[in-house]
């Protein structure tokens, strides 16, 4: 109709695109005259036809009770609390190494894997650790962690703690200090060590040789000893520990901690043969013949160097040699000299800090990446800067300035960007040079394995990059009975990742020696995806709830010697920190009160006692007459203890206060008033 078009343009002209087509008109009329009469009669007949056709079709409604109502798994029915702190224990995640992946996978599939456990490469049960520590059962906590982590005291100091990055508590305030709690467990294990560490029975005839006593080798040894095998570990240095000993500075990892934990393994039955260089002292073929299985866990031995002009001058160090010289052999000749460290990774930061401790006059860290992109962990960088390391970011090494065959400095070139749009390594440099005077230059740009000597005389073949090719998931090499794990397989990585690969290798070896197929029915570690949380705003969060701050030695003091920087928690601090754990996915309410805080209708009240050593929920009120079934509380619940039932929201006869008090909490959860769990008529799945 003309009027409407005109109106359309007259009143709303500015935002009506002309391209909009008026394609569909809602108006429909009967034709005039006799045809219209026929259409009218036909409309009645058509209507009767439609209803008649529908009347012979199958009814779409339910025939109660012959047809059961199926509810969506996400159904937001009435709420119920499945477990209560103080009444139910948190299930520990433990099992033999060969079945552990299956356990994790099962939990993951059922959405019951805590994010900390899922995000850890070795799936250490951090939740169980917190539970046991809060319960003052430190010895059990230590042993629980050791089952997967092998060296809780060591990793409790040096781990890059992916568990904490996934900690759900970040969403509310701050993550749990899982790594320091390993250390607490280790320290408190001292009093139990004598009685609890005992030789493991050897039940199998087969013997296994492990080359290398780094984290991966020890992890494999631990699992294999538990499976009843005799394990011999060969180490080329004079003390065990591998990279932990040579690469990790003592200010992060005191030597006695490592020694204690390795001594524990030896007490359990691990035979350690130090000072034996396989390939030179003993040919690897000899081992292959002697033992039923051989595991190569030799790690990375050499630093990669940059082929820039002058890199053969005196005063150039590779990172590994520098670290080894610095913190093991005591001093590396940098006292009073200017040190330039090239690289932005954790090893580079370690080199810089070691140089400081060895008495260098000035330590400069030069990296290609900008400050925000540095691959080193932010806390490491922060600590280094705190100690006086000078950072020169976004510079690439151009050439070494050499005077009389000695290093005099380095010419650096400004770097504009390191990665291209696809995230590939493609540095772009500006024509802008800076000369940095230095007496010692340390290249900390990566490490490589040195296996040629080790494998000589065997059928093992190396890749172009010098790595040992393995079936990544099964850890097998080309030679049957020879396995590999750790950084020889994965390339440079974290200690905990090496431990994880050690566990995998041990599983393969056990299957191999049992004569089973290596892959059949084997569950690989699931790759969980957890949301990354931005740190929560801490306004309004009482200090008692926050993360315990790790006491640190003062920057100026600590930079002078190799004493440990982190001072550790006290007993009470440890208890309090462990008690902060939300016990994600444990289905046991910890009284965190996040449901009460989230409820828009103020229908939930939680009261609890929260003293170290004595924690319990004393009262849980769920006023279902206020509940609007929005589901926010159950979504927030980290433990999964508060969940919806498969019931209809109005299926209650009494929608009154549902109060759990102390007495009711001790009772069986079945049939409690809050849930109306007696009612089974409506297809309650749980």
């Amino acid at each position, binding site marked *: 109709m003309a009027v409407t078009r005109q109106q359309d343009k007259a009143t709303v002209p500015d935002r009506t*695109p002309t391209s909009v087509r008026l394609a569909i008109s809602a108006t429909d009329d009967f034709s005039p005259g006799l045809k219209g009469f026929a259409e009218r009669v036909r409309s009645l007949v058509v209507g009767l036809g439609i209803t008649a056709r529908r009347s012979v079709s199958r009814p779409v409604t339910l025939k109660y009770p012959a047809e059961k109502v199926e509810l969506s798994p996400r*159904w937001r029915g009435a709420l119920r609390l499945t477990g209560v702190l103080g009444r139910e224990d948190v299930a520990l995640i433990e099992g033999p190494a060969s079945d552990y992946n299956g356990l994790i996978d099962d939990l993951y599939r059922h959405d019951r894997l805590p994010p900390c456990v899922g995000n850890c490469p070795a799936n250490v049960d951090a939740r169980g650790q917190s539970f046991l520590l809060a319960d003052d059962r430190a010895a059990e906590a230590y042993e629980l962690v050791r089952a997967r982590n092998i060296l809780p005291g060591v990793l409790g100091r040096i781990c890059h703690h992916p568990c904490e990055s996934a900690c759900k508590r970040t969403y509310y305030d701050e993550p749990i200090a899982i790594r320091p709690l390993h250390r607490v467990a280790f320290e408190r294990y001292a009093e139990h060590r004598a009685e609890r560490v005992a030789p493991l029975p050897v039940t199998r005839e087969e013997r296994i040789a492990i080359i290398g006593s780094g984290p991966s080798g020890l992890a494999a040894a631990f699992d294999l000893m538990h499976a009843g095998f005799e394990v011999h570990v060969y180490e080329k240095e004079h003390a065990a520990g591998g990279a932990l000993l040579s690469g990790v500075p003592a200010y992060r990892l005191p030597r006695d901690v490592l020694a204690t934990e390795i001594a524990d393994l030896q007490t359990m039955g691990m035979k350690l043969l130090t000072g034996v260089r396989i390939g030179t002292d003993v040919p690897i073929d000899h081992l292959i013949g002697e033992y039923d299985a051989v595991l190569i866990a030799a790690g990375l031995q050499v630093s990669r160097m940059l082929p820039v002009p002058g890199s053969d001058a005196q005063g150039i160090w590779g990172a590994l040699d520098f670290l080894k010289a610095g913190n093991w052999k005591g001093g590396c000749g940098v006292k009073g000299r200017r040190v330039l460290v090239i690289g932005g990774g954790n090893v580079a930061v370690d080199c810089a800090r070691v140089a400081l401790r060895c008495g260098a006059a000035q330590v400069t860290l030069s990296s290609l990446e900008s400050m925000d992109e540095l691959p080193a962990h932010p806390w490491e960088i922060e600590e280094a800067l705190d100690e006086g390391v000078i950072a020169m970011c976004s510079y690439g090494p151009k050439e070494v300035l050499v005077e009389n065959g000695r290093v005099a400095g380095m010419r650096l070139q400004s770097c504009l960007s390191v990665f291209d749009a696809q995230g590939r390594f493609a540095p772009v440099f500006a024509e802008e040079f800076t000369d940095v005077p230095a007496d010692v230059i340390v290249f900390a740009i990566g490490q490589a394995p040195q296996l040629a000597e080790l494998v000589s005389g065997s059928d093992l073949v190396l890749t172009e990059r010098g790595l040992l090719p393995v079936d990544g998931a099964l850890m097998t090499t080309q030679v049957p009975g020879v396995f590999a794990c750790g950084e020889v397989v994965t390339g440079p990585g974290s200690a905990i990742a090496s431990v994880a690969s050690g566990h995998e290798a041990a599983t393969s070896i056990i299957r191999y020696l049992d004569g089973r197929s290596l892959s059949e029915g084997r569950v690989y570690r699931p790759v969980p995806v957890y949301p990354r949380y931005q740190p929560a705003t801490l306004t309004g969060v009482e200090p008692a709830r926050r993360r315990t701050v790790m006491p640190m030695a003062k920057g100026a003091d600590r930079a002078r010697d190799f004493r440990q920087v982190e001072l550790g928690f006290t007993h009470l601090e440890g208890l309090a920190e462990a008690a902060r754990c939300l016990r994600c996915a444990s289905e046991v309410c910890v009284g965190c009160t996040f449901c009460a805080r989230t409820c828009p209708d103020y229908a939930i009240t939680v009261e609890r006692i929260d003293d170290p050593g004595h924690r319990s929920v004393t009262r849980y009120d769920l006023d279902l007459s206020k509940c609007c079934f929005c589901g926010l509380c159950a979504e927030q619940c980290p433990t999964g203890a508060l969940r919806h039932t498969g019931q209809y929201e109005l299926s209650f006869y009494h929608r009154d206060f549902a109060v759990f008090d102390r007495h009711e909490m001790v009772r069986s959860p079945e049939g409690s008033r809050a849930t109306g769990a007696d009612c089974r008529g409506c297809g309650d799945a749980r």
Partner: protein
Amino acid sequence: MAVSVESRNLVSAPDGGSREELVVNVGPSHPSTHGVGRVIVHLDGDIVVKAEPVIGYLHRGIEKMAENRTYLQVVPLTDRLDYVGSMYANWAYCRAVERLAGIAVPERAEYLRVIVCELQRIASHMMGIGASAADTGAFTFFIYAFDQRERIIELFERLCGARLTYNYVRPGGVSFDAPQGWTQDVLAFTKAFRAAAADLDRLFFGNVIARGRMKGIGVLSADDAVAWGASGPTARASGVNWDLRKHDPYSVYPRMDFDVVVGERGDAYDRGRCRLLECVESCRIIDQAISQMHPGPVRTEGLPRLLQPRPGEAYDHIESARGSLGVYLVSDGSVRPYRMHVRSPAFCNLALLPLLAEGHTLSDLVVVLGSLDPVFGEVDR
């Protein structure tokens, strides 16, 4: 407003004499007031001389309650605004929050929002035209329409665990990703719905009695539609080509190919059929959205638990089943909104009732009321 409670009223007629008016209270408890609406109808014989809508029977103070809740806690409240189309209120509110706090929404979440809101449009229109048809006695049509709505509600139940108050759209995305096989079932639904819609069209909108009841009833001119702030199918049936999905495109609607349905006469029939045909367009949008959707996150990662937007204000609106639904938010920098206001299309459309109903019979009043499709949860707020 003076509310007459006398059932018989003697009024002076323009010709100098007087006539007796019968005052009928339609509502607030009445089968065809679509909730708890109330209309005081003055009848001269069977002719409506005056119809005064009385509102407020469902006023819960949602806008005031919002001032006392955090930004996340307000979402369940918005469910209760338009309880026939909760997704819309969720979305309009979340858009306002996102604008206020500067939150970017992942693409998949936007597609899911479009899909659920178009499904919601079908569900809401099925309710609207179904109830409107039931007002004219076509109860079976109402059941058929509700059958379609029920299928959508079951899809929603699988998606978010609730059938009516979804609490699905959240600031920064949606609460859940679609479960396994859900999108296929949605496609199967849209396919089946097209056939069902043709049936519904012939059963009711083609019926001679229905046309007799609805054609020429409650004619709204395009002038009046614009002047009274009508929106949605109510305005489009009068020929006002105004659809926010086209004219103020938001979300991923610019990527969708669909047509706006407009009427020519602006009567109750056009309003009703406009809704039905819009549902078919919604099916087109849903099909396109599903084919364009890629896997990905459905919620902005790393949103803090308590949103704390900077002080300021934001307004955003979307095309709901009833018209342009807008939410205005003011933040004072705290974790709670300082003020929330909802621009409710149902409220504006309901204001047209006196204009449209006067001069018709009492039987037509319910047809007019039904064709405006008011939802009193949104009218009263």
